[in-house]
Structure formats: C-alpha cells, structure tokens
C-alpha cells in the first residue's frame, strides 16, 4: 500500500511573512474592491438620476403655462418650499424607488421672471445622495445637475 506523507518544512518565519504579505495586500485589495463597487454604484446612480431628471424636465418643457408646471410639480414631488425660487423635493430609496426611503433626493428649483408677453422660468434640477459614498472622496454627494430655461408665452408661440 502506498502511503503519502506530507513532509512540510515550513518555518514559523515563513508563516509570519506570508501572513504579513497577505494582510498588506488584503488591505489594498479590499480598498480596491470597495472603490470599484462604489464607483459602479455611482455610475449606475448617474444613469438612474439622469433618466428621472430628463423625464421631469421634458414634461415641464411640454407644458403650456407656469400653472400647469406647478400642478405637475405639486403632484409628482413630495416636499415644497414656497420661497423664491420655489423648490420641490422628492425622495428615493437605494433602488431609486420613490417614496420608500431617503437615500437620494431630487430637487428642482424654479424661478419665474415675468416679462412682457410671457413668463421665463429658470429651472435647476439636481440629484444628490443623502450620505456620502464610502471609499470615494472625489465628487462628494452630487449625482446629477441640469440647468435650463423655459419660456411660456401668453399667446402665440405654437409649434406649427
């Protein structure tokens, strides 16, 4: 019968060296995996926030007057501050589902400027993460920002 005996000649020093190397590399690797994970989450957040923000701004641009705009914002946003500019905020959970958590906030501020023959509305929409991303220092909590303007003419201006 064949018997295999493992004759390991491993010294204590070698084990200590191995553990030190593994620990040092492990710290770097864990950081690297952590940064990669949260960088990916950040990239996904940008895509999700971009879709929500673009959808809202396109709806606003398709509306006929500032009253319709405020009705839409009242209905689709959770909070409203009545200061000038008027700010509306809605909250999302970590999976970007509205109303289930406060991991992300989408804030829109609208400032109306009455001019002859219509109203020019300055719009600024931003998405932010409530808590900072772990492992990532660069970029802060800002996820997305879009600024634009919309002119609501009192009469005329129809797209022919």
């Amino acid at each position: 019968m064949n018997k295999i005996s493992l004759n390991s000649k491993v010294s204590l020093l070698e084990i200590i060296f191995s553990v030190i190397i593994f620990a040092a590399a492990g710290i770097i690797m864990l950081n690297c995996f952590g940064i990669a994970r949260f960088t990916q989450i950040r990239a996904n957040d940008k895509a999700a926030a971009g879709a929500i923000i673009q959808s809202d701004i396109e709806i606003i641009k398709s509306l006929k007057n500032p009253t319709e705009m405020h009705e839409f914002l009242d209905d689709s946003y959770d909070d409203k501050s009545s200061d000038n500019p008027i700010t509306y905020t809605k909250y999302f959970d970590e999976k970007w589902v509205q109303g289930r958590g406060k991991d992300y906030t989408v804030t829109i501020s609208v400032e109306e400027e009455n001019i002859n023959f219509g109203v020019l509305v300055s719009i600024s929409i931003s998405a932010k993460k409530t808590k900072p991303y772990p492992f990532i220092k660069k970029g802060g909590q800002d996820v997305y920002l879009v600024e634009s303007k919309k002119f609501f003419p009192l009469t005329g201006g129809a797209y022919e």
Partner: protein
Amino acid sequence: MNRRTNVSVGMGGTLVVIVFVVLCLMIFAALSFTTAYSDLKLSNKAQEITADYYYIHGKAEEKLAEISEVLHGLDAVGDKTAIFRKLSQIDGVQVDEENSKVSYESTGQKNQKISVTLNIVYEDRVYYEIESWNLSNIELPVYEDQIIELWEGIE
C-alpha cells in the same frame, strides 16, 4: 508491500502560493475597478452632453423671450421693416423680411447646436410661431475619400 512516498513542500513553498493568490486577487481587483471607472466615465460624459443640451435649450428659450418682448405691443398694421429692424438688433438673430421669418442658433460646448426658425404672424397683433426647432452637430466628422482602384476585368 508498504511504500512510503515523501512529498516535500519545501522552504518558500507557502510564500510562493501566497504571492500567486495575492497576484490573482490583485488582478481581479484592478479589473473590477477599471470596469467600474469606465462606466463612471461614460456616465459622466453622458451627463455633460445632457447638461450642455439643456443649457443651449435654455439659451434658445431666453432668445425666444427676447424676441417675444420686442414683438409685444407692436402694431400689426405698422411698418414691417421697422419690426424686422428691431428684431435684427437682437444679438445673433437673423431676419428674412421677404418671407417674414426670423432665425437664430444657440451653440453649446459639446459640438451641438439648436437652430430655431420663427414665422412672424401679423393678425390683430404681431406674434411668432415656431416653424422649426432643430438640434444638430456644429461640426460633422470629415471622412477622407478612399479611392480604390478596382480590377475592371479582361478586355
């Protein structure tokens, strides 16, 4: 008959295995970071282009408001030339008095522009109607013509 085989790991064997495992994990970590960073760069680029689009859209709307302000209060039976002279004073606005059209462009930083054409309508008062509102590139890539001499066959 009992035979005994000695397998010796030897001095340094553990270190070699550890270094190999660490190297493998390092490569995986680097690859996952590179993939995630590429996705982030793509998302940032998409965001920059989107933000630029809405910025130039806003500028075009602002110009529309300026034109609307000029048209406000003008008498429809008044001098057409005077109306178009006033409109041409707005920065960047081109007028076509013959066809009663006004056009302007709003350009962004990311090779995109919005070209707007308005019809000036005279009824009981003067107002505009948007004829076109087009997004296009400022510069299109130029591809060099590649002339390939083809075999024309045997005569």
